[in-house]
């Protein structure tokens, strides 16, 4: 098992505002160079509610699926599958919790897990999707596969 990636930070706003910003303004805060197309004009859309799609749409209307919302519990919790243009079966899981703190502040806890699911394809020859993706995204996707590869190796040698 590759351990989940956990990141947390405090933000000077309410949990409700953090949840709303996260979900309705993802296009404004997600780093524009970390997209599948790498097109700075691409728009990132998060459809609110369970089952909502998260995707990227180019100016020409080409869409790249990023994932699907699996938990929608405003303003405390949000979870989505995350495959970024790859096969859905290889989706990892992202969960974000918004915790109220004193003085109107909130803590955002991000957990990114499910790396082992990439194993469905890690050892199978395929046309690496990053060949068609910009550098940054190629690194992310490639890294996730490598994380899995190491995980597999560790299991074999332990």
């Amino acid at each position, binding site marked *: 098992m590759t351990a989940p990636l956990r*990141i947390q930070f405090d933000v000077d706003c309410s949990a409700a505002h953090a949840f709303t910003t996260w979900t309705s303004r993802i296009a404004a805060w997600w780093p524009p160079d970390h997209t599948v197309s790498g097109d700075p004009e691409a728009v990132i859309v998060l459809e609110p509610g369970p089952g909502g799609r998260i995707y990227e749409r180019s100016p020409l209307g080409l869409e790249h699926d990023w994932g699907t919302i699996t938990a929608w519990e405003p303003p405390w919790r949000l979870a989505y599958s995350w495959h970024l243009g790859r096969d859905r079966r290889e989706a990892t899981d992202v969960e974000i919790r918004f915790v109220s703190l004193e003085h109107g502040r909130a803590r955002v806890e991000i957990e990114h897990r499910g790396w082992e699911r990439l194993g469905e394809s890690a*050892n199978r020859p395929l046309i690496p999707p990053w060949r068609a993706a910009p550098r940054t995204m190629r690194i992310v996707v490639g890294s996730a596969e490598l994380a*899995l590869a190491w995980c597999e190796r*560790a299991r074999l040698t332990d």
Partner: protein
Amino acid sequence: MPVEQTRGDPFEALGDPTRREILRLLSTGEKPVHEIAVALPVSRPAVSRHLRLLKDAGLVSERSEGTRRIYHLQAGGVRAVQDYLEGIWGDAAARFRMLAENTGRDEDEATVR
């Protein structure tokens, strides 16, 4: 060329498609240099150069078997990969925080989209 160098940057090492392809090849098990080379559309010296860089970055290790050099993934390298992913999330988190802290707090519904 020196065999040993100062420790390289794993992110730089991962930033090249040929090197990622090498790591993918090694993810199925250790392999001698020539096997890696035949699977790639680059010259043998180029493969050696990539392998050296990956080794310097702590992503692969080698062992000798007679005159052959066998390469395998280095388990500790996973930490570097996770650090990298953490960096991407950190970037996203910083941008998110700036936006959330500089937008209205009570008119959320009105400001959606």
